[in-house]
């Protein structure tokens, strides 16, 4: 991966991400049912292959394209008072860590490749951890963000468990901002919309500079990442299933988001 030149695929370039290989339009369920079957037999293993391995392989290139914070996330982080204690769960390259240097954030990600980038941002801290097995005390944190993470979990149960795991870290007054890719994005170049297949493979195309190519080697490699595209209201359903309360919710740039906290019936350690 070191040989990759980010210059050949500038951030935001429409060439870096191709439309998904699974057809959304023809109503043929064969591809989607394959995804479901595979993911339900051993979802953790499925995600290891179709999410974690891919992120480790594309880490430097992915990181070079991820530097622009989304406005809702920025506002949420800036609203935290100085000395607040927070988590960035599934932090990737840590692009949200520079936003508020007056709070202390422990950022975690499964990708050892991406966490190296995240660990550069002071005064925060970065660790390798799984969202479904977080190494944090319960009921301790003032806030948490979980941006573009839960859509990589391949079963409904695991997505609910992830929301529960996030709420579990929060104090009674703590709030979490959760953000995931929307199914309804008809104006994006991908063109998904209501009624499209929700479980899709999305390609990441990585181009190599010509000088780095071995003889006869193709100048681009395509990696496929698994996504569950959230439909309208689905994130709120996840929060309610975890006995959380939705404080605020909305849609921003092809993503659904919620700000949530623990509800009255919230139970630590509960199996969902």
């Amino acid at each position, binding site marked *: 991966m070191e040989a990759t030149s980010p210059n050949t695929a500038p951030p935001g370039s429409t060439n870096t991400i191709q439309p998904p290989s699974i057809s959304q339009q023809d109503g043929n369920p064969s591809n989607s049912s394959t995804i479901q079957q595979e993911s339900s037999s051993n979802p*953790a293993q499925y995600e290891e292959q179709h999410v974690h391995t891919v992120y480790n392989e594309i880490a430097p290139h992915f990181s070079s394209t991820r530097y622009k914070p989304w406005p809702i996330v920025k506002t949420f982080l800036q609203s935290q*008072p*100085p*000395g*607040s*204690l927070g988590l960035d769960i599934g932090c990737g390259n840590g692009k949200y860590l520079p936003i508020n*240097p*007056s*709070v*202390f954030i*422990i950022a*975690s990600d*499964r990708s*050892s490749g991406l*966490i*190296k980038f995240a*660990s550069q941002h*002071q*005064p925060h*801290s*970065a*660790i*390798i*951890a*799984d969202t479904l*097995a*977080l*190494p*944090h*005390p*319960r009921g*301790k*944190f003032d806030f948490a963000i979980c941006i573009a993470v839960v859509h990589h979990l391949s079963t409904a149960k695991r997505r609910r468990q992830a929301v529960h795991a996030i709420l579990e870290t929060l104090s009674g007054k703590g709030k979490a901002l959760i953000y995931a890719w929307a199914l309804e994005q008809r104006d994006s170049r991908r063109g998904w919309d209501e009624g499209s297949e929700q479980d899709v493979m999305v390609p990441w195309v990585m181009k190599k500079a010509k000088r780095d190519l071995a003889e006869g080697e193709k100048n681009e490699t395509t990696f496929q990442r698994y996504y569950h595209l959230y439909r309208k209201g689905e994130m709120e359903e996840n929060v309610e299933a975890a006995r959380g309360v939705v404080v605020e919710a909305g849609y921003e740039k092809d993503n659904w988001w919620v700000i949530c906290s623990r509800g009255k019936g919230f139970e630590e*350690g509960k199996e969902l």
Partner: protein
Amino acid sequence: MKVLTLNFLTCAVKACKTTSASFPLVPKECELVSDTIAPNPTLLTNLLPRVDWPALGSIAVALGFPSLSPLPPTPADLENDTKMMADLHTLLLETQISEGSLVCANCGHEYKVKEGIANFLLPNHLV
């Protein structure tokens, strides 16, 4: 891995979460390095009530630092004593575990720290 971070970490194994033995994780054969980080007195003063002081004391001693005072400093202490503030900043934010392990005193699982980053991914039999 900052000393402050250790105050907000437990064992990743679900069954350990409810036991007091899983907190704090115990540093084992740790190498320390020192970073230079811009001081932020407000951050530290506001965060201090969230720090489990006895846990911090046991970690400091395990890492070879002198014993801490039995009680945490008050905001007034910190405001009037710049050396105390500077020492706390050095211990909590600038001191890093670069290599070593963190051990759960309940289940005995060891989490490795490499190049300053602790890895909490569990082997399959512990998930």
